């Protein structure tokens, strides 16, 4: 799995590419946790490059959400393909995350959250 990154307007975009399954989720978790430990507080996880996510991958998203709970931080997901969205829905998780269609909206949402 590759993990892309972008820094934009004081927010960090993390963009995993490939399958986030029980094998690769460990790598994503280490990456995300390292960024959070290093002080990232406004984070967008762009899932546009993710074709499949397993429950182990969902757990990584939850770990990030727990640590970025407002007012401490902000987490926005974006770029969810149909299969990723379905997995999120099946686990009953869509209500637990702030979700935007694409990266631009996600960054605008982060901006708005921290301004308020």
């Amino acid at each position: 799995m590759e993990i892309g990154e972008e820094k934009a307007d004081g927010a960090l975009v993390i963009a995993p590419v490939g399958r986030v399954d029980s094998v690769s989720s460990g790598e994503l978790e280490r990456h995300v946790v390292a960024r959070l430990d290093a002080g990232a507080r406004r984070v967008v996880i762009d899932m546009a490059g993710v074709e499949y996510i397993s429950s182990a991958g969902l757990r990584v998203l939850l770990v990030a959400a727990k640590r970025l709970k407002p007012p401490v931080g902000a987490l926005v997901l974006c770029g969810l393909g149909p299969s990723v969205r379905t997995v999120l829905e099946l686990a009953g998780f869509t209500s637990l995350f702030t979700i935007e269609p694409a990266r631009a909206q996600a960054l605008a949402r982060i901006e708005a959250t921290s301004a308020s």
Partner: protein
Amino acid sequence: MSTLHLLVQPRDGEPFRHEVQGEAAVLGRSSKADVVLADRYLSRQHARLVLREGSWFLEDLGSRNTTFLNDRPLAQPMPVRPGDVIRLAESRITVTEPGGDMPSPAVGDGLTGGTDERLPESTIFRPASELLAASVAAGESGGLAARMRLINEVHRALAAPITLEALLDLILDRVFVQLQPEEGAVFLRDEKGELKRAAIRRARGITGEPLYSRRLAQEVTEKGVAALVTDASADERFAKAESIVFSGVRSLLAAPLLDSEGCLGMVVLSAKSRLHPFQEDDLELLMALASAAAMRLRNIALAEETARRRLLDRELELARDIQMAMLPKAFPHLGGIDVSAALRPARTVGGDLYDVMADGERVWLLVGDVSGKGVGAALFMAVTKTLFRAIAPGSASVAEAASRMNRELARDNERAMFVTAFAARLDVATGELEYVNAGHNPTYRLEAAGAVAPLPGPVDPALGAVEVHEYRSTRLRLARGDAVLLYTDGVIEARSAAAEAVETLGLAAGEAAEEFHTLRLESYLKSCRGETAERIVQGLLERLDEFVGDAPQYDDVTILALRWLGPR
């Protein structure tokens, strides 16, 4: 004596010498300490050396990791003298005599100097293969006969089962008898490939901690050459380079522990005495011994690895037995219902669970699937099952039970483990079914009249994902003879051997088409009209086996079927 001479070996820095003058010196990580040690595990002001009535005392300054003097924790200030070793966290300080007479203690691995250090010109390197051929060719002729006997003897001894310690002992025993060094040591590569001293032996009367040149070790172990350093002290540079070997060594012999797969370490011998300077013959003998030992060393390492794995396997088997024992095999004789369930873990232990529990006129049902796999998932499964047993019977509704279980599972759940679950309660007297779907696959209703459809209702988050959530339940009335089928996604996501092959070859394939999928499940369930719960479960397992073929089981599979037969 009022000056204290120290050899300081910090964990994260280069060793250095330090002379403590005056009345006291603080040892610590702080830049304000008198002796600053680069060791992140050290307290800022860790310990102190104090001069009292002409003697130096060591005292701990309330450090986090305490201070050790000659490997004993320091309870009160203790006097120190040359030869004592002070340990602070992972750093060492050795108290030495003034001047250079005191041999330098070993730095952790017993090697010293840099890898770019130059070796004395008197050093002779011989390829290991050449030496081995020579010792075979020598046969029983001349003075080598005794040595050949020795090698045979070692080979015989090595044929019997032997521990690593005994093997190292044996090597050193033999070289001491035959080559009379003053000191011998065996270095082995650790799992990171770094050389560590594994055994050392000295002739009587020899003291001090020797250091062998890292450069020499590198030559021997990386190039697979044996080395003979004769009369080293005669070489000008060598005599000055204290770090190559301890001072005064006249002769040094080193051989790699080589087998067909590579180098495992080295054996090194040193002698001061001019009576027995090492010869090239000695190199041949040491090489022969080392290669015999190396073969055995590899076997021992493999055997230890196998033993460790076997132990782990046994632990996992035990965990599996405990886990399987948590699942009910026989179901409450309630009358009015027909229940059957099966769980097949994909690994030794798994994260799926089911339960069936009588509660007066009611029956509770649970099927769940913990995120992730392996031991962590298995432990979370056990907690979930235990909570269900404790919480469900006292709860007014399934929604309340789910909300309470969720609260318990989410508490202090830093790792964000969660369990998708379908929980239900059937009133056996009325056929009323109340259920909660916590992020789980929809349960199917198999109507007595023949229709098959997923149970309607909202999907709430999987249990453990959020601290507080009010779960919603749905109620409906079953008709007499209706059945429900609860399952985990291992059923619908089971993959055929063909799908595995496609994946392995990296070809694109419609994932849905290669999975068992809800369509196959629904079509099977439609064929189950009037079947017993056990037939429904077993029949589905058979269909899965047929579909999956030779492919390895990818995920845990759990199936639970219940038919309501009507009021008792």
